[in-house]
């Protein structure tokens, strides 16, 4: 069952095609990664999904029917990349206000806010003004505001920016828990290691076009370059004179090699065993999403600048 389906979405602004014929669908209860360099059209796409923008062409289906921003807005929780709250307002009041704007009654909102404040250990903040919060605290409050009304679809744009590792883990656990309880999550980021860890399915966009669509596993398989790593017993070395593989690098008795076409791992093992070379470990090295991301984005002509991830 698809929670959300985008069909041939286009959105043009005066000077550029922000979204140019993008389609994809998101499974209910999955964690979906929307990736792309800065200016790729991610924010526009997210704004279309949240109903802030109407697409010029194409349609958005929510649970199989046409998305109606006026009604369905309470089913969505959106945390934009640029986090924003009313600075002069108190933390508790602010959370209540946004909860009510999402359609909760005052008492429901109060109950939920208390629940979440307990959960994320924020009870003592209730009467603090938002301008007095640290960036991490600000982020936690923003997260609570996003998920307070138990939305079916939670959209998180760079949810970990500015969080220390401890708090990032707290939020990450909450994301997993919410997904397990049935919420669907769209996760937008540049941080590929987080995507590999969290997302089931990803879409990569650049310059308004979709470059990649699939599960993390599938994509890695698709982009694998048949690179293997092998560790041999002490004082053994990998033979060079073979046409099964080509050595890329080595460090002591740990080797990285690329398999030549139409050969398999078994052939390598067979070849080494026959020569009585002791093998301590052998595994395939799949490309990181980061590598795939950079490779695809850089191969798009005249791609714009984006942050490389260390």
């Amino acid at each position, binding site marked *: 069952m698809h929670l959300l389906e985008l069909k041939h979405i286009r959105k043009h602004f005066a000077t550029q095609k922000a979204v140019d014929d993008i389609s994809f669908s998101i499974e209910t209860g999955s964690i979906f990664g929307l990736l792309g360099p800065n200016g790729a059209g991610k924010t526009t796409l997210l704004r279309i999904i949240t109903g802030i923008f109407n697409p010029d062409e194409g349609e958005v289906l929510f649970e199989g029917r046409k998305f109606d921003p006026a009604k369905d807005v309470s089913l969505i929780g*959106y945390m934009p990349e640029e986090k924003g*709250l*009313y600075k002069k307002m108190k933390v508790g009041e602010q959370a209540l206000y946004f909860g009510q*704007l*999402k359609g909760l009654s005052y008492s429901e909102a109060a109950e939920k806010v208390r629940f979440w404040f307990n959960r994320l250990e924020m009870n003592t903040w209730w009467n603090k003004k938002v301008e007095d919060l640290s960036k991490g605290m600000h982020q936690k409050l923003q997260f609570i505001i996003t998920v307070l009304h138990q939305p079916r679809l939670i959209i998180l744009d760079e949810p970990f920016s500015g969080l220390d590792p401890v708090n990032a883990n707290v939020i990450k656990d909450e994301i997993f828990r919410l997904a397990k309880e049935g919420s669907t999550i769209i996760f937008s980021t540049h941080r590929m290691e987080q995507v590999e860890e969290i997302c089931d399915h990803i879409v990569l966009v650049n310059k308004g076009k979709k470059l990649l669509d699939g599960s993390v596993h599938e994509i890695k398989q698709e982009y694998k370059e048949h690179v293997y790593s092998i560790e041999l017993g002490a004082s053994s070395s990998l033979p060079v004179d073979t046409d099964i593989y080509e050595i890329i690098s080595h460090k002591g008795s740990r080797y990285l090699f690329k398999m030549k076409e139409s050969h398999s791992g078994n052939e390598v093992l067979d070849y080494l065993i026959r020569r009585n070379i002791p093998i301590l470990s052998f595994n395939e090295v799949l490309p990181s999403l980061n590598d795939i991301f950079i490779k695809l984005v850089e191969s798009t002509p005249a791609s714009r600048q984006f942050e490389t991830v260390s």
Partner: protein
Amino acid sequence: MNKILLIIKREYLTRIRNKTFILSTILTPLFFIALIGATAYFSNSNSEELHIGVYDESGLFTQKLKSNDNIRYTSVPQMIYDSFVMKNPVDPYNGVLHIPVIDVEKPSGIEYISDKQLGIFSQAQVNDDLNDVLEQERMIRANIDTVKLAAIKLNEISISQKIVGDDEDSKTANAAVSSAIGYISGFMIYFLMFIYGTMVMRGIMEEKVSRVAEVMVSSVKPFQLMMGKIIGIGAVGLTQFLIWIALAVVGSIIFGSSLSPQHMQQVAEAQQQAKGVAVANLMNDVTAQVNVPFLIGAFVFYFIFGYLFYASLFAAVGSAVNEDPQDAQAMMFPITIPIIFSIIVMTRAIGNPTGALAVWCSIIPFTSPIIMMARLPFGFPGTVAWWELTASVVCMIGGFLFTTWLSAKIYRTGILMYGKKASWKDMLQWVVRKS
């Protein structure tokens, strides 16, 4: 609808609870009372009392210059005059008036010698006093009986106006009272529109800069957010105005009973001396002359719709600019022109409330809140005809609907645009483009 109410509530409560609101609500009337009190005090207690020595060589003025509250004239010998000339002032004189032998028909050469300059009023007073004596002297020489002349000049006329109209109980009108009320209402609308209009603009800029706007518009429609803000802030303005009305009523009851009529008279005289607005007199006349509840009703109407009209425009500007306050200033300029123009027209409208300029400007919604409020105290129906008020009200409501529609279009796009500020051309495109 429920969401607009939530937004209105937030905008209203955060501002009402703010210390600035409480202070400005209390301090503004106090400031005005202090201002009126101060002018009354300073014009009443004449700070400067001059003692002038008169060294009269002509003999024409001796014993004839009349001392008054401000200036005392005393004849002095040449010795004292010489002393002043030698830069040696002699107590108790502030200065010496030297009158040489002069021709009564062509007097010249009269000098005032002192180490301190005379104030402009004192100088005028001395001139008047000298001229009076001279005039008397000339009349005597022309064989005119001064006593007879004084009798002839007695009891000059001061006309009173009676305005007749369809209204049965036509009232005696006092142009000064109407003008004063016109000025006060016009200026109050002006200030309220300006203060609360720019408050809307700043509020929207703040939402845009702090990026809270994007979180908001994922929950509510941009139009709801804009209208919630405009209405919430307008309610703050209305609250402030009603508090002032209440304070004025309470104040006039308290002061009315504690101040003796004599006291009031004194204040009134002081006011007239200062050539200012006869506020105290006015207070007595207001209730007798104009329909106060009608005026307050009209004021509330023109405040609300004038505010809504301009606040929407200010909202559009707020959504189109970014952090830079200078951009906001530049974009605000075209909006402030008609408001300032209204104030200029207002002075003419009060001078001639039935002139074509006044009539048309009280109908066009850009100027009508201020101009109509300046005209209404001159009488309705009468000075302001039924059709004029109706046309003005209809245009005002229509104008408000138009600016709101226009601004909503600009706001919807502007609020999410970051980076460079929008040009007029961009904004026009946002308006024309279909949603």
